[in-house]
């Protein structure tokens, strides 16, 4: 599982990089935000991989990590923005 976890982190970093290129990073994250996006991708992919292992088995965990990471980098920054908007109201 250690090797698989490492694979999911690498996959998440790549997805984070793609998310940066796709300009999914909110402007409010500032200059170092791109690093945050990489970290978010890696973290969500790792969580997705473990969730996939539990729900579908290790064979399908990488595919699960893939789509959860994409969803994560696409939706979580927006979700954070909405949460902070509510907090600042």
């Amino acid at each position, binding site marked *: 599982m250690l090797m698989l976890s490492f694979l999911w982190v690498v996959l998440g970093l790549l997805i984070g990089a793609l998310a940066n290129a796709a300009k999914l990073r909110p402007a409010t994250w500032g200059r170092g935000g791109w690093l945050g996006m990489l970290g978010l991708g890696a973290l969500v992919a790792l969580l997705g991989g473990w969730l996939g292992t539990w729900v579908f088995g290790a064979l399908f965990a990488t*595919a699960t990590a*893939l789509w959860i990471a*994409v969803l994560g980098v696409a939706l979580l920054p927006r979700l954070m923005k909405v949460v902070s908007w509510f907090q600042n109201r």
Partner: protein
Amino acid sequence: MDGHQPSLPQGKKPGALADRPERTWKLGQRAAQAALAFLLCLGAFLSLVPWGRALTRSALLLPALLSASEPAPLALAGDPVRFKRLTISSSIGPVFLDIYEPATPPPPIPGGREAIIDVPGAGDNRPVPQLVNLSQSLAREGVVVVTVGTPTLFDYQVSARDGEAVVQAFELLEHWPGVDPQRIGIISFSVGDLLACVGAADPRIRDRVAFLAFLGGYVNVTGLLRTLGRRAQDVDGQTKPWQPISTDLYVLARTVSSLLSLTDQQLLQQAFPLTTRALPLTAQQQAQLSPDATAYYHLLEGDEPGSVDGNLAALSSPLKVLLNQLSPLSVLGQIRAPIHLLHDRNDPSIPFTQAQEFAAVLAHLHHPYDLAAYSIFSHVQVGSNLGQGQVLGDGLKLLGVLTSILLVGS
């Protein structure tokens, strides 16, 4: 190009040049968004959709089959495998079971595991590396695999009674921890398809068998004897020479031995040993054979290709009845499960015409089936030194069959 196209104003040119990196940047952004959308769809399909999960499994299993070894991705992502050897008693005597199963509990989705009963051909094939590799690879993918053996099969004989072994294995698997009773299928190799067919046609289990897959199987012993006797087969309207391997003749000679005298048995065993081709019986030895054994001998020896029909007609009634019992054809009408036929076009053990006849019978019965012809197998094992074209073409066909088989448990 009529020369009236408006030219860009001079003042705009520096701006247009400045726009170019931004356009490229926009293009990169769109490409990244498209790549993310593709990865999202791909990941969701391969993990959430049963067809996708079956495709993932078959794509990981295919290299294991073609290379006859365990590929790294399967070793990395697959389940650890537990092996057990069991012997159960049945009405036909002991049934030997080699069980390969994942050592982890089944995941919540899809729930219960798929199980596959694996019936190898004549002889004790349990330690054959390609069979062990297939069983282990399937177990790594979450499938419980049971390889079935019987004393008769180990003794290079085929008996319809041994279908009981498949029924016993099926009933055992239905209560096996983690196995979903609705997801049990049967794969057979070579003459093992008789056991698989007889088992799958048994009223005790026939409505619950999920699928049958036969690699290099036969359907009709009389048709097989006709091809043997002629040493030729008709494929696509063309008659092609065909030479059997010694194992076929050995198995066919032994399988009917219970109906022959001791002299007949000894002479047929002398004429058809297991590993080598013996010299034909002398005229004097042939004279010692009973009429039944004489006709049977000439069919196996292939020395009277013009008298095949006569020799088949000369077989005694009990022998004809036995040959009928030894033909999966006799029970096909009672099978409910869909059937996948896989056969190499140049199979040196069971001629390809048997697969064609099998398919024709199933089509006549309106039974769900598919037939895939290959060139990568040497009877039931993947050949060596395969060309890239062979691997690619046959690999895709094999991927389709594997996906159908693994869909049951996905």
